[in-house]
Protein backbone atom coordinates (compact mmCIF):
# COMPACT_ATOMS: atom_id res chain seq x y z
CA UNK A 1 0.00 0.00 0.00
CA UNK A 2 2.82 2.34 0.94
CA UNK A 3 4.32 1.84 -2.44
CA UNK A 4 1.08 2.56 -4.13
CA UNK A 5 0.52 5.67 -2.12
CA UNK A 6 3.89 7.06 -2.99
CA UNK A 7 3.28 6.36 -6.60
CA UNK A 8 0.03 8.19 -6.59
CA UNK A 9 1.53 10.97 -4.55
CA UNK A 10 4.17 11.32 -7.19
CA UNK A 11 1.62 11.45 -9.96
CA UNK A 12 -0.61 13.77 -8.04
CA UNK A 13 2.14 16.21 -7.24
CA UNK A 14 3.41 16.44 -10.75
CA UNK A 15 -0.02 16.80 -12.21
CA UNK A 16 -1.34 19.26 -9.70
CA UNK A 17 1.77 21.36 -9.95
CA UNK A 18 0.55 22.00 -13.40
CA UNK A 19 -2.86 23.15 -12.49
CA UNK A 20 -1.08 26.15 -11.12
CA UNK A 21 0.18 26.95 -14.54
CA UNK A 22 -1.71 30.02 -15.49
CA UNK A 23 -3.41 30.45 -18.79
CA UNK A 24 -1.11 31.86 -21.38
CA UNK A 25 -1.58 35.38 -22.57
CA UNK A 26 -4.35 35.53 -25.13
CA UNK A 27 -2.91 35.08 -28.63
CA UNK A 28 -2.07 38.43 -30.10
CA UNK A 29 -4.49 39.60 -32.71
CA UNK A 30 -2.75 38.57 -35.92
CA UNK A 31 -2.66 41.23 -38.65
CA UNK A 32 -4.71 40.28 -41.68
CA UNK A 33 -2.55 38.50 -44.26
CA UNK A 34 -2.83 38.35 -48.03
CA UNK A 35 -3.90 35.34 -50.02
CA UNK A 36 -1.10 33.61 -51.88
CA UNK A 37 -0.81 34.13 -55.61
CA UNK A 38 -0.55 31.36 -58.19
CA UNK A 39 3.22 31.23 -57.98
CA UNK A 40 3.09 31.01 -54.19
CA UNK A 41 0.40 28.38 -54.26
CA UNK A 42 2.48 26.22 -56.55
CA UNK A 43 5.53 26.81 -54.39
CA UNK A 44 3.56 25.67 -51.36
CA UNK A 45 2.52 22.50 -53.13
CA UNK A 46 6.10 21.88 -54.17
CA UNK A 47 7.07 22.43 -50.57
CA UNK A 48 4.76 19.61 -49.64
CA UNK A 49 6.45 17.22 -52.05
CA UNK A 50 9.91 18.41 -51.06
CA UNK A 51 9.17 18.62 -47.33
CA UNK A 52 10.03 22.29 -47.42
CA UNK A 53 8.43 25.28 -45.76
CA UNK A 54 5.44 27.15 -47.08
CA UNK A 55 5.67 30.84 -47.72
CA UNK A 56 3.36 31.32 -44.77
CA UNK A 57 5.71 29.44 -42.46
CA UNK A 58 8.25 32.24 -42.39
CA UNK A 59 8.22 34.16 -39.14
CA UNK A 60 7.44 37.41 -40.93
CA UNK A 61 5.17 35.95 -43.58
CA UNK A 62 2.72 38.36 -45.11
CA UNK A 63 0.73 35.73 -46.92
CA UNK A 64 -1.36 32.80 -45.90
CA UNK A 65 -1.21 29.33 -47.42
CA UNK A 66 -3.98 27.32 -49.02
CA UNK A 67 -2.33 24.19 -47.68
CA UNK A 68 -1.69 25.34 -44.18
CA UNK A 69 -2.45 22.10 -42.40
CA UNK A 70 -0.67 18.82 -42.39
CA UNK A 71 0.28 17.00 -45.58
CA UNK A 72 -1.03 13.50 -46.24
CA UNK A 73 2.11 11.61 -47.27
CA UNK A 74 4.17 12.93 -44.38
CA UNK A 75 1.39 12.64 -41.85
CA UNK A 76 0.58 9.10 -42.94
CA UNK A 77 4.21 8.13 -42.60
CA UNK A 78 4.48 9.70 -39.18
CA UNK A 79 1.37 7.99 -37.86
CA UNK A 80 2.56 4.64 -39.13
CA UNK A 81 6.00 5.32 -37.69
CA UNK A 82 4.50 6.11 -34.30
CA UNK A 83 2.52 2.88 -34.40
CA UNK A 84 5.70 1.01 -35.31
CA UNK A 85 7.59 2.49 -32.38
CA UNK A 86 4.78 1.47 -30.04
CA UNK A 87 4.99 -1.98 -31.63
CA UNK A 88 8.64 -2.05 -30.56
CA UNK A 89 7.60 -1.90 -26.90
CA UNK A 90 4.26 -3.68 -27.02
CA UNK A 91 4.88 -6.46 -27.81
CA UNK A 92 8.38 -6.23 -29.38
CA UNK A 93 10.48 -5.42 -26.36
CA UNK A 94 8.50 -7.46 -23.88
CA UNK A 95 8.97 -10.48 -26.11
CA UNK A 96 12.65 -9.83 -26.68
CA UNK A 97 13.26 -9.39 -22.98
CA UNK A 98 10.49 -11.71 -21.82
CA UNK A 99 11.85 -14.61 -23.81
CA UNK A 100 15.17 -14.22 -22.04
CA UNK A 101 13.91 -14.39 -18.47
CA UNK A 102 12.85 -17.48 -16.63
CA UNK A 103 9.30 -18.68 -16.97
CA UNK A 104 8.33 -17.43 -13.56
CA UNK A 105 9.15 -13.83 -14.45
CA UNK A 106 7.81 -13.47 -17.94
CA UNK A 107 4.71 -11.59 -16.90
CA UNK A 108 6.64 -9.20 -14.74
CA UNK A 109 8.44 -7.98 -17.84
CA UNK A 110 5.13 -7.59 -19.62
CA UNK A 111 3.60 -5.71 -16.71
CA UNK A 112 6.55 -3.40 -16.44
CA UNK A 113 6.31 -2.53 -20.12
CA UNK A 114 2.58 -1.90 -19.92
CA UNK A 115 2.96 -0.01 -16.66
CA UNK A 116 5.58 2.23 -18.16
CA UNK A 117 3.41 2.84 -21.22
CA UNK A 118 0.59 4.04 -19.00
CA UNK A 119 2.66 6.04 -16.56
CA UNK A 120 4.78 7.80 -19.17
CA UNK A 121 1.72 8.67 -21.25
CA UNK A 122 0.19 10.41 -18.27
CA UNK A 123 3.38 12.30 -17.52
CA UNK A 124 3.80 13.17 -21.18
CA UNK A 125 0.30 14.51 -21.42
CA UNK A 126 0.54 16.47 -18.19
CA UNK A 127 3.87 18.16 -18.75
CA UNK A 128 6.44 15.82 -20.28
CA UNK A 129 5.88 16.82 -23.86
CA UNK A 130 6.05 20.46 -22.94
CA UNK A 131 9.16 19.87 -20.89
CA UNK A 132 10.91 18.39 -23.90
CA UNK A 133 9.54 20.26 -26.88
CA UNK A 134 8.14 23.44 -25.40
CA UNK A 135 10.64 26.05 -26.52
CA UNK A 136 11.54 29.40 -25.15
CA UNK A 137 12.67 28.29 -21.74
CA UNK A 138 16.30 27.21 -21.59
CA UNK A 139 18.78 25.17 -23.61
CA UNK A 140 18.74 22.52 -20.91
CA UNK A 141 15.08 22.23 -20.14
CA UNK A 142 11.91 22.94 -22.04
CA UNK A 143 8.97 25.02 -20.99
CA UNK A 144 7.05 23.37 -18.21
CA UNK A 145 3.78 24.96 -19.19
CA UNK A 146 3.79 25.85 -22.87
CA UNK A 147 2.22 22.60 -24.01
CA UNK A 148 1.12 21.31 -20.61
CA UNK A 149 -1.87 18.96 -20.89
CA UNK A 150 -1.11 19.01 -24.61
CA UNK A 151 -2.68 22.44 -24.77
CA UNK A 152 -2.47 23.84 -28.32
CA UNK A 153 -1.10 20.59 -29.58
CA UNK A 154 -3.52 20.09 -32.41
CA UNK A 155 -3.53 18.68 -35.91
CA UNK A 156 -1.65 21.60 -37.43
CA UNK A 157 2.11 21.24 -37.79
CA UNK A 158 4.43 22.81 -35.29
CA UNK A 159 6.89 24.10 -37.82
CA UNK A 160 9.70 24.00 -35.30
CA UNK A 161 9.73 20.27 -35.80
CA UNK A 162 8.00 19.59 -39.06
CA UNK A 163 6.34 21.51 -41.83
CA UNK A 164 3.86 18.85 -42.75
CA UNK A 165 3.30 16.54 -39.82
CA UNK A 166 0.48 17.31 -37.39
CA UNK A 167 1.70 18.60 -34.07
CA UNK A 168 -0.36 16.05 -32.16
CA UNK A 169 1.02 13.22 -34.27
CA UNK A 170 4.54 14.49 -33.61
CA UNK A 171 3.81 14.55 -29.91
CA UNK A 172 2.48 10.98 -29.98
CA UNK A 173 5.44 9.85 -32.05
CA UNK A 174 7.79 11.29 -29.49
CA UNK A 175 5.71 9.75 -26.70
CA UNK A 176 6.54 6.34 -28.09
CA UNK A 177 10.24 7.15 -27.67
CA UNK A 178 9.59 8.29 -24.14
CA UNK A 179 7.92 4.95 -23.45
CA UNK A 180 10.53 2.66 -24.88
CA UNK A 181 13.54 4.38 -23.37
CA UNK A 182 12.88 3.55 -19.72
CA UNK A 183 11.57 0.15 -20.80
CA UNK A 184 15.04 -0.64 -22.13
CA UNK A 185 16.38 -0.34 -18.59
CA UNK A 186 14.24 -3.30 -17.58
CA UNK A 187 16.67 -5.64 -19.26
CA UNK A 188 19.37 -5.00 -16.72
CA UNK A 189 17.23 -5.34 -13.65
CA UNK A 190 14.95 -8.11 -14.82
CA UNK A 191 13.70 -10.75 -12.40
CA UNK A 192 14.53 -8.87 -9.23
CA UNK A 193 12.97 -5.45 -8.90
CA UNK A 194 9.60 -4.86 -7.36
CA UNK A 195 6.88 -3.55 -9.61
CA UNK A 196 6.20 -0.58 -7.38
CA UNK A 197 9.88 0.28 -7.38
CA UNK A 198 10.05 0.05 -11.15
CA UNK A 199 7.15 2.46 -11.57
CA UNK A 200 8.45 4.95 -9.07
CA UNK A 201 11.97 4.79 -10.45
CA UNK A 202 10.79 5.30 -13.99
CA UNK A 203 8.55 8.19 -13.05
CA UNK A 204 11.39 10.05 -11.41
CA UNK A 205 13.92 9.08 -14.03
CA UNK A 206 11.76 10.50 -16.80
CA UNK A 207 11.59 13.85 -15.08
CA UNK A 208 15.22 14.05 -14.11
CA UNK A 209 17.00 12.33 -16.97
CA UNK A 210 14.88 11.81 -20.04
CA UNK A 211 12.94 15.04 -20.35
CA UNK A 212 15.93 17.35 -19.91
CA UNK A 213 18.18 15.25 -22.10
CA UNK A 214 15.64 14.94 -24.88
CA UNK A 215 15.13 18.70 -24.75
CA UNK A 216 18.82 19.40 -24.93
CA UNK A 217 19.32 17.11 -27.90
CA UNK A 218 16.08 17.49 -29.85
CA UNK A 219 14.39 20.63 -28.55
CA UNK A 220 14.52 23.40 -31.13
CA UNK A 221 16.47 25.53 -28.68
CA UNK A 222 18.25 22.59 -27.06
CA UNK A 223 21.84 22.95 -25.91
CA UNK A 224 23.08 19.98 -27.93
CA UNK A 225 20.86 20.28 -30.97
CA UNK A 226 23.58 20.91 -33.51
CA UNK A 227 21.38 20.51 -36.55
CA UNK A 228 18.50 22.81 -35.71
CA UNK A 229 19.58 25.21 -32.98
CA UNK A 230 21.69 28.04 -34.38
CA UNK A 231 22.81 28.78 -30.83
CA UNK A 232 23.62 25.22 -29.81
CA UNK A 233 26.20 25.13 -27.03
CA UNK A 234 27.47 21.77 -28.14
CA UNK A 235 27.28 21.09 -31.85
CA UNK A 236 26.59 17.41 -31.56
CA UNK A 237 24.12 15.42 -33.63
CA UNK A 238 21.93 12.49 -32.79
CA UNK A 239 19.46 11.45 -35.45
CA UNK A 240 17.18 9.06 -33.62
CA UNK A 241 18.46 8.72 -30.11
CA UNK A 242 21.95 7.32 -29.56
CA UNK A 243 22.42 9.54 -26.53
CA UNK A 244 18.83 10.29 -25.55
CA UNK A 245 17.55 6.74 -25.82
CA UNK A 246 20.29 4.16 -25.76
CA UNK A 247 23.06 5.75 -23.76
CA UNK A 248 20.75 7.22 -21.17
CA UNK A 249 18.92 3.94 -20.61
CA UNK A 250 22.00 1.78 -20.96
CA UNK A 251 24.20 3.62 -18.49
CA UNK A 252 21.37 4.04 -16.05
CA UNK A 253 20.72 0.34 -16.36
CA UNK A 254 24.27 -0.49 -15.38
CA UNK A 255 24.12 1.70 -12.33
CA UNK A 256 20.75 0.42 -11.27
CA UNK A 257 21.74 -3.22 -11.65
CA UNK A 258 24.84 -2.60 -9.56
CA UNK A 259 22.79 -0.98 -6.82
CA UNK A 260 20.23 -3.78 -6.93
CA UNK A 261 22.81 -6.50 -6.81
CA UNK A 262 22.67 -9.76 -8.68
CA UNK A 263 19.68 -12.09 -8.85
CA UNK A 264 19.47 -14.76 -6.18
CA UNK A 265 21.45 -17.73 -7.39
CA UNK A 266 23.26 -15.69 -10.06
CA UNK A 267 26.23 -17.63 -11.34
CA UNK A 268 25.01 -20.77 -9.62
CA UNK A 269 21.57 -21.56 -10.93
CA UNK A 270 20.72 -22.11 -14.53
CA UNK A 271 19.06 -18.94 -15.72
CA UNK A 272 18.78 -19.85 -19.35
CA UNK A 273 16.13 -18.03 -21.42
CA UNK A 274 12.76 -19.65 -21.03
CA UNK A 275 11.95 -19.12 -24.67
CA UNK A 276 14.56 -18.24 -27.25
CA UNK A 277 11.78 -18.49 -29.80
CA UNK A 278 9.95 -15.65 -28.12
CA UNK A 279 13.14 -13.64 -27.96
CA UNK A 280 13.59 -14.11 -31.70
CA UNK A 281 10.01 -13.03 -32.39
CA UNK A 282 10.65 -9.91 -30.36
CA UNK A 283 13.81 -9.27 -32.35
CA UNK A 284 11.94 -9.43 -35.62
CA UNK A 285 9.37 -7.01 -34.29
CA UNK A 286 12.02 -4.66 -32.94
CA UNK A 287 13.72 -4.62 -36.32
CA UNK A 288 10.51 -3.91 -38.19
CA UNK A 289 9.42 -1.32 -35.64
CA UNK A 290 12.82 0.31 -35.73
CA UNK A 291 12.05 1.61 -39.21
CA UNK A 292 9.48 3.80 -37.53
CA UNK A 293 12.06 4.78 -34.98
CA UNK A 294 14.86 5.65 -37.39
CA UNK A 295 13.25 6.59 -40.68
CA UNK A 296 10.40 8.19 -38.77
CA UNK A 297 12.89 10.45 -37.05
CA UNK A 298 13.13 12.42 -40.28
CA UNK A 299 9.60 13.55 -39.35
CA UNK A 300 8.73 13.41 -43.03
CA UNK A 301 8.61 10.76 -45.73
CA UNK A 302 11.47 12.42 -47.54
CA UNK A 303 14.90 11.54 -48.85
CA UNK A 304 16.42 11.69 -45.39
CA UNK A 305 13.92 9.14 -44.17
CA UNK A 306 14.77 7.06 -47.20
CA UNK A 307 18.44 7.22 -46.32
CA UNK A 308 17.75 6.32 -42.71
CA UNK A 309 15.65 3.39 -43.84
CA UNK A 310 18.48 2.12 -45.96
CA UNK A 311 21.31 2.50 -43.48
CA UNK A 312 19.15 0.94 -40.78
CA UNK A 313 18.51 -2.14 -42.85
CA UNK A 314 22.12 -2.66 -43.74
CA UNK A 315 23.54 -2.05 -40.28
CA UNK A 316 21.07 -4.43 -38.66
CA UNK A 317 21.61 -7.24 -41.13
CA UNK A 318 25.39 -6.91 -41.18
CA UNK A 319 25.71 -6.71 -37.40
CA UNK A 320 23.44 -9.71 -36.94
CA UNK A 321 25.57 -11.74 -39.29
CA UNK A 322 28.86 -10.55 -37.86
CA UNK A 323 27.91 -11.30 -34.25
CA UNK A 324 26.80 -14.81 -35.09
CA UNK A 325 29.81 -15.47 -37.27
CA UNK A 326 32.10 -14.37 -34.45
CA UNK A 327 30.45 -16.97 -32.29
CA UNK A 328 30.83 -19.47 -35.10
CA UNK A 329 34.56 -18.83 -35.22
CA UNK A 330 35.16 -18.58 -31.50
CA UNK A 331 32.75 -21.15 -30.12
CA UNK A 332 32.00 -23.28 -33.14
CA UNK A 333 28.29 -22.53 -33.08
CA UNK A 334 26.42 -19.46 -34.23
CA UNK A 335 23.59 -18.94 -31.78
CA UNK A 336 20.12 -17.59 -32.29
CA UNK A 337 20.74 -15.20 -29.45
CA UNK A 338 23.82 -14.12 -31.36
CA UNK A 339 21.81 -13.31 -34.46
CA UNK A 340 19.24 -11.51 -32.36
CA UNK A 341 21.73 -9.58 -30.27
CA UNK A 342 23.66 -8.60 -33.36
CA UNK A 343 20.56 -7.32 -35.08
CA UNK A 344 19.58 -5.25 -32.08
CA UNK A 345 23.12 -4.00 -31.63
CA UNK A 346 23.24 -2.98 -35.27
CA UNK A 347 20.00 -1.11 -34.85
CA UNK A 348 21.25 0.60 -31.71
CA UNK A 349 24.54 1.72 -33.18
CA UNK A 350 23.01 3.03 -36.40
CA UNK A 351 20.33 4.93 -34.49
CA UNK A 352 22.20 8.20 -33.96
CA UNK A 353 23.80 7.90 -37.38
CA UNK A 354 21.10 6.62 -39.70
CA UNK A 355 20.06 9.95 -41.18
CA UNK A 356 23.62 11.26 -41.43
CA UNK A 357 25.75 8.46 -42.89
CA UNK A 358 25.74 6.83 -46.29
CA UNK A 359 25.55 3.18 -47.22
CA UNK A 360 29.25 2.62 -46.83
CA UNK A 361 29.08 4.17 -43.40
CA UNK A 362 26.31 1.81 -42.46
CA UNK A 363 28.36 -1.22 -43.47
CA UNK A 364 31.21 -0.05 -41.26
CA UNK A 365 28.77 0.55 -38.45
CA UNK A 366 27.25 -2.87 -38.98
CA UNK A 367 30.60 -4.60 -38.67
CA UNK A 368 31.58 -2.71 -35.53
CA UNK A 369 28.13 -3.16 -34.03
CA UNK A 370 28.51 -6.89 -34.42
CA UNK A 371 31.93 -6.81 -32.82
CA UNK A 372 32.10 -4.35 -29.95
CA UNK A 373 28.88 -5.16 -28.07
CA UNK A 374 29.64 -8.84 -28.61
CA UNK A 375 32.90 -8.38 -26.77
CA UNK A 376 31.17 -6.41 -24.03
CA UNK A 377 28.56 -9.11 -23.46
CA UNK A 378 30.82 -12.10 -23.86
CA UNK A 379 33.90 -10.90 -22.01
CA UNK A 380 33.35 -7.68 -20.10
CA UNK A 381 30.32 -8.87 -18.19
CA UNK A 382 31.76 -12.20 -17.03
CA UNK A 383 34.97 -10.42 -16.12
CA UNK A 384 33.29 -7.89 -13.87
CA UNK A 385 30.52 -10.24 -12.73
CA UNK A 386 27.78 -7.61 -12.64
CA UNK A 387 24.37 -9.04 -13.30
CA UNK A 388 23.17 -7.06 -16.30
CA UNK A 389 20.54 -9.74 -16.71
CA UNK A 390 19.59 -9.24 -20.34
CA UNK A 391 22.54 -7.08 -21.40
CA UNK A 392 21.02 -3.65 -21.55
CA UNK A 393 24.42 -2.22 -20.77
CA UNK A 394 26.28 -4.50 -23.15
CA UNK A 395 24.00 -3.74 -26.05
CA UNK A 396 22.43 -0.35 -25.47
CA UNK A 397 25.04 1.55 -23.48
CA UNK A 398 28.01 0.15 -25.35
CA UNK A 399 26.16 0.26 -28.66
CA UNK A 400 24.74 3.72 -28.10
CA UNK A 401 28.10 5.07 -27.07
CA UNK A 402 29.79 3.49 -30.05
CA UNK A 403 27.10 4.85 -32.35
CA UNK A 404 27.29 8.38 -31.01
CA UNK A 405 31.03 8.38 -31.57
CA UNK A 406 30.95 6.79 -35.02
CA UNK A 407 28.35 9.33 -36.07
CA UNK A 408 31.00 11.94 -35.41
CA UNK A 409 33.35 10.25 -37.84
CA UNK A 410 30.99 9.05 -40.54
CA UNK A 411 28.34 11.78 -40.87
CA UNK A 412 28.30 13.37 -44.29
CA UNK A 413 26.42 16.31 -45.72
CA UNK A 414 25.87 14.33 -48.92
CA UNK A 415 22.95 12.46 -47.48
CA UNK A 416 21.55 15.18 -45.26
CA UNK A 417 21.51 18.77 -46.37
CA UNK A 418 20.54 19.90 -42.88
CA UNK A 419 24.12 19.30 -41.80
CA UNK A 420 24.94 22.41 -43.79
CA UNK A 421 21.66 24.20 -43.29
CA UNK A 422 21.37 27.67 -41.85
CA UNK A 423 21.34 26.68 -38.17
CA UNK A 424 24.30 24.37 -38.71
CA UNK A 425 26.17 27.17 -40.39
CA UNK A 426 25.28 29.57 -37.63
CA UNK A 427 26.50 27.37 -34.82
CA UNK A 428 29.48 26.01 -36.69
CA UNK A 429 28.36 22.41 -37.11
CA UNK A 430 28.55 22.70 -40.87
CA UNK A 431 32.31 23.11 -40.67
CA UNK A 432 32.76 20.32 -38.14
CA UNK A 433 31.16 17.61 -40.23
CA UNK A 434 33.93 15.30 -41.39
CA UNK A 435 36.32 17.44 -39.50
CA UNK A 436 36.33 17.06 -35.75
CA UNK A 437 32.67 16.53 -35.16
CA UNK A 438 33.55 13.54 -33.00
CA UNK A 439 34.91 15.89 -30.35
CA UNK A 440 31.50 17.51 -30.06
CA UNK A 441 30.00 14.07 -29.92
CA UNK A 442 32.32 13.21 -27.06
CA UNK A 443 31.05 16.19 -25.12
CA UNK A 444 27.45 15.17 -25.60
CA UNK A 445 28.31 11.61 -24.65
CA UNK A 446 30.05 12.75 -21.49
CA UNK A 447 27.11 14.86 -20.43
CA UNK A 448 24.73 11.99 -21.11
CA UNK A 449 26.78 9.54 -19.09
CA UNK A 450 27.27 11.87 -16.17
CA UNK A 451 23.60 12.83 -16.02
CA UNK A 452 22.44 9.24 -16.30
CA UNK A 453 24.83 7.84 -13.76
CA UNK A 454 24.47 10.51 -11.13
CA UNK A 455 20.72 10.81 -11.41
CA UNK A 456 20.23 7.06 -11.33
CA UNK A 457 22.24 6.70 -8.15
CA UNK A 458 20.18 9.34 -6.44
CA UNK A 459 16.84 8.16 -7.72
CA UNK A 460 17.61 4.55 -6.90
CA UNK A 461 18.34 5.40 -3.29
CA UNK A 462 15.29 7.59 -3.04
CA UNK A 463 13.13 4.76 -4.33
CA UNK A 464 14.86 2.34 -2.02
CA UNK A 465 14.05 4.59 0.90
CA UNK A 466 10.42 4.98 -0.03
CA UNK A 467 9.25 1.58 -1.29
CA UNK A 468 12.38 -0.57 -1.33
CA UNK A 469 13.92 -1.97 -4.47
CA UNK A 470 13.91 -5.73 -4.21
CA UNK A 471 11.21 -8.25 -3.49
CA UNK A 472 11.59 -10.58 -0.52
CA UNK A 473 13.74 -13.64 -1.11
CA UNK A 474 10.65 -15.74 -1.10
CA UNK A 475 8.97 -13.61 -3.73
CA UNK A 476 12.02 -13.58 -5.91
CA UNK A 477 12.34 -17.34 -5.63
CA UNK A 478 8.71 -17.91 -6.38
CA UNK A 479 8.92 -15.53 -9.29
CA UNK A 480 7.63 -12.03 -9.73
CA UNK A 481 4.65 -13.13 -11.80
CA UNK A 482 2.91 -14.60 -8.82
CA UNK A 483 4.42 -12.34 -6.24
CA UNK A 484 3.75 -9.01 -7.91
CA UNK A 485 0.86 -9.79 -10.22
CA UNK A 486 -0.87 -12.90 -8.95
CA UNK A 487 -0.79 -14.58 -12.32
CA UNK A 488 1.23 -17.18 -14.14
CA UNK A 489 2.52 -16.92 -17.66
CA UNK A 490 1.40 -20.35 -18.74
CA UNK A 491 -1.07 -22.92 -17.48
CA UNK A 492 -1.78 -26.53 -18.31
Amino acid at each position, binding site marked *: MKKLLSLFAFLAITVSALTLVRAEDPPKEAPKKADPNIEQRIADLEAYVNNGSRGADAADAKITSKVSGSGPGHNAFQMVSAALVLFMTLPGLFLFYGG*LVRKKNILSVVAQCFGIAGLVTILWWAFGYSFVFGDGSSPWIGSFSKFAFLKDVDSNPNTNYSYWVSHNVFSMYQLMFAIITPALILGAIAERMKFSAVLLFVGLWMVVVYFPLAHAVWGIDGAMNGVWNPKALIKSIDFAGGTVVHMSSGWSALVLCLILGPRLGFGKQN*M*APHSMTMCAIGTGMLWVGWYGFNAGSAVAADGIAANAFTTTTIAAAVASFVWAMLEYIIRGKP*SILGFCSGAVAGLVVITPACGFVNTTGSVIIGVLAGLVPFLA*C*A*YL*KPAFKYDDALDTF*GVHAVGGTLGALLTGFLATGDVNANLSGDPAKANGLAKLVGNGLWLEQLKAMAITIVLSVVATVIIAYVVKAIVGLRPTEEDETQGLDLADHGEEGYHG
Partner: protein
Amino acid sequence: MKKIEAIIKPFKLEEVKDALHDVGAEGMTVSEVKGFGRQKGHTEIYRGSEYTVDFLPKIKIELVLADSKVQEAVAAIIKAAKTGKIGDGKIFISGVEEAVRIRTEEKGENAV
Protein backbone atom coordinates in the same frame (compact mmCIF):
# COMPACT_ATOMS: atom_id res chain seq x y z
CA MET B 1 2.11 -58.36 -10.00
CA LYS B 2 5.17 -56.39 -10.85
CA LYS B 3 5.79 -52.89 -11.94
CA ILE B 4 8.31 -52.28 -14.65
CA GLU B 5 9.77 -48.82 -14.89
CA ALA B 6 11.85 -48.25 -17.96
CA ILE B 7 13.81 -45.11 -18.65
CA ILE B 8 14.50 -44.89 -22.38
CA LYS B 9 15.60 -42.47 -25.06
CA PRO B 10 12.69 -40.36 -26.26
CA PHE B 11 12.81 -41.33 -29.89
CA LYS B 12 12.55 -45.01 -28.95
CA LEU B 13 9.11 -44.64 -27.44
CA GLU B 14 7.12 -45.75 -30.46
CA GLU B 15 9.22 -48.85 -30.93
CA VAL B 16 9.11 -49.84 -27.30
CA LYS B 17 5.38 -49.33 -27.17
CA ASP B 18 4.90 -51.54 -30.18
CA ALA B 19 7.21 -54.18 -28.78
CA LEU B 20 5.35 -54.22 -25.51
CA HIS B 21 2.07 -54.38 -27.28
CA ASP B 22 3.32 -57.37 -29.22
CA VAL B 23 4.09 -59.26 -26.05
CA GLY B 24 0.62 -58.59 -24.75
CA ALA B 25 1.00 -55.58 -22.53
CA GLU B 26 -2.30 -53.83 -22.87
CA GLY B 27 -1.68 -50.75 -20.88
CA MET B 28 1.13 -48.49 -19.87
CA THR B 29 1.73 -45.00 -18.66
CA VAL B 30 4.54 -42.79 -19.88
CA SER B 31 5.97 -39.53 -18.71
CA GLU B 32 8.60 -37.10 -19.81
CA VAL B 33 11.50 -37.04 -17.41
CA LYS B 34 15.06 -35.80 -17.31
CA GLY B 35 17.89 -38.20 -16.72
CA PHE B 36 21.24 -37.83 -15.13
CA GLY B 37 23.76 -40.59 -15.69
CA ARG B 38 26.91 -41.45 -17.48
CA GLN B 39 25.79 -39.89 -20.70
CA LYS B 40 27.13 -36.42 -20.44
CA GLY B 41 25.00 -33.37 -21.06
CA HIS B 42 25.91 -30.30 -22.99
CA THR B 43 26.80 -26.69 -22.48
CA GLU B 44 24.66 -23.79 -23.58
CA ILE B 45 26.01 -20.28 -23.84
CA TYR B 46 23.73 -17.28 -23.79
CA ARG B 47 25.89 -14.28 -24.54
CA GLY B 48 28.27 -14.15 -21.59
CA SER B 49 26.53 -16.79 -19.48
CA GLU B 50 27.43 -20.44 -19.72
CA TYR B 51 25.14 -23.15 -18.40
CA THR B 52 25.91 -26.83 -18.14
CA VAL B 53 22.88 -28.94 -18.73
CA ASP B 54 23.41 -32.26 -16.99
CA PHE B 55 19.89 -33.52 -17.40
CA LEU B 56 18.89 -35.07 -20.66
CA PRO B 57 15.38 -35.68 -21.87
CA LYS B 58 14.22 -39.25 -21.32
CA ILE B 59 10.95 -41.08 -21.36
CA LYS B 60 9.78 -43.12 -18.41
CA ILE B 61 7.44 -46.02 -19.13
CA GLU B 62 5.58 -47.56 -16.25
CA LEU B 63 3.61 -50.71 -16.62
CA VAL B 64 2.16 -53.10 -14.15
CA LEU B 65 1.74 -56.66 -15.22
CA ALA B 66 1.42 -60.20 -14.02
CA ASP B 67 4.58 -61.80 -12.73
CA SER B 68 4.52 -64.31 -15.51
CA LYS B 69 4.85 -61.69 -18.19
CA VAL B 70 7.74 -59.78 -16.73
CA GLN B 71 10.63 -61.56 -18.39
CA GLU B 72 9.11 -61.30 -21.79
CA ALA B 73 8.33 -57.63 -21.35
CA VAL B 74 11.81 -56.80 -20.16
CA ALA B 75 13.29 -58.61 -23.10
CA ALA B 76 11.01 -56.75 -25.45
CA ILE B 77 11.97 -53.41 -23.99
CA ILE B 78 15.65 -54.15 -24.21
CA LYS B 79 15.33 -55.28 -27.78
CA ALA B 80 13.46 -52.20 -28.85
CA ALA B 81 15.27 -49.59 -26.81
CA LYS B 82 18.85 -50.63 -27.23
CA THR B 83 21.08 -48.58 -29.48
CA GLY B 84 24.26 -49.69 -27.80
CA LYS B 85 25.23 -46.12 -27.12
CA ILE B 86 25.60 -44.69 -23.68
CA GLY B 87 22.36 -43.35 -22.27
CA ASP B 88 20.10 -46.14 -23.44
CA GLY B 89 18.53 -46.22 -20.02
CA LYS B 90 17.50 -48.59 -17.28
CA ILE B 91 14.74 -50.94 -16.34
CA PHE B 92 13.63 -51.30 -12.73
CA ILE B 93 11.29 -53.98 -11.44
CA SER B 94 9.43 -53.86 -8.17
CA GLY B 95 6.50 -55.50 -6.52
CA VAL B 96 2.91 -54.31 -6.67
CA GLU B 97 0.46 -55.49 -4.09
CA GLU B 98 -2.80 -54.61 -5.67
CA ALA B 99 -4.26 -53.15 -8.81
CA VAL B 100 -7.74 -51.78 -9.38
CA ARG B 101 -9.45 -50.79 -12.60
CA ILE B 102 -11.41 -47.73 -11.68
CA ARG B 103 -14.13 -48.19 -14.28
CA THR B 104 -15.10 -51.70 -13.22
CA GLU B 105 -13.51 -51.94 -9.82
CA GLU B 106 -11.94 -55.20 -10.96
CA LYS B 107 -8.95 -56.09 -8.85
CA GLY B 108 -5.64 -57.86 -9.24
CA GLU B 109 -4.31 -59.24 -12.48
CA ASN B 110 -7.64 -58.70 -14.15
CA ALA B 111 -7.18 -55.05 -13.65
CA VAL B 112 -3.88 -54.54 -15.39
